[in-house]
């Protein structure tokens, strides 16, 4: 019986994923106090940080509330949308 030798070549490449932003957009319905509450509930932010982000949403029309790996960003967008906040996902520049 002939012997077969198998040679396995492994080539590993590491690249850094482009981070994704979770963006909350302003709307005239969701109460400011509620937006702050949701940011604290989902991200565990301090009341101060959540309030700053909420004010960015209110005054600038949008705020990047979280950045990081895509899978986690998708999860957060889903969570925020389930709380009825206008939320989108975008590649960080």
């Amino acid at each position, binding site marked *: 019986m002939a012997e077969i030798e198998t040679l396995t070549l492994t080539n590993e490449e590491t690249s850094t994923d482009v981070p*994704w932003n979770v963006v909350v*957009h302003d*709307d*005239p*319905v*969701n*109460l400011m*106090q*509620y937006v702050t*509450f949701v940011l604290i509930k989902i991200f565990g932010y301090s009341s101060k940080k959540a309030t700053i982000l909420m004010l960015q949403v209110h005054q600038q029309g949008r705020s990047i509330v979280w950045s990081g790996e895509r899978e986690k960003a*998708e999860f957060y*967008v*889903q969570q925020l*949308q*389930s*709380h*009825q906040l*206008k*939320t*989108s*996902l*975008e*590649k960080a520049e």
Partner: protein
Amino acid sequence: MKAMPTLEGGLRIDSEDLADWEVLRSITIDATACDTDLANRLGSIISPEAGREDWQEFVVPDLREAFQDELTQIGATIEAAMFEADGGPGSIWITREDGFAWYSSFNQARLALEEQFAFGDSESLSPKGLTTHRRSAFIRSRFYCAIQGLLLEHVIK
């Protein structure tokens, strides 16, 4: 109609007559009155680059079901309370556990009204110049908002 916090950390809504019950019943009617449902509207915010197609396929159905479940829950509570009161004076007791479903349902109704009537910043809007249909929707939206404020202050937080 009166609404007040309870000692158990919930909220009690007292309905005085049939007109009050009709206002409460309008929550679920308003919430579902848009041509495009809330889950779809939220899904449309996701850009094609971010995977809108997958979002519509995998996330939107779950969101739709969750929103509908909340409306079904509070709709059943209102109908049961109205039936018990025979359309007359009666109360709805919102427990702390149910607080979010109620808040969410009021929010769904307000988001749908905003989608249809585009009230915008309602603080600066006067109902006087509005048509009857629009004024009625505006007043309901303000009522829902007032109850949401109480829920946030006394129940959810």
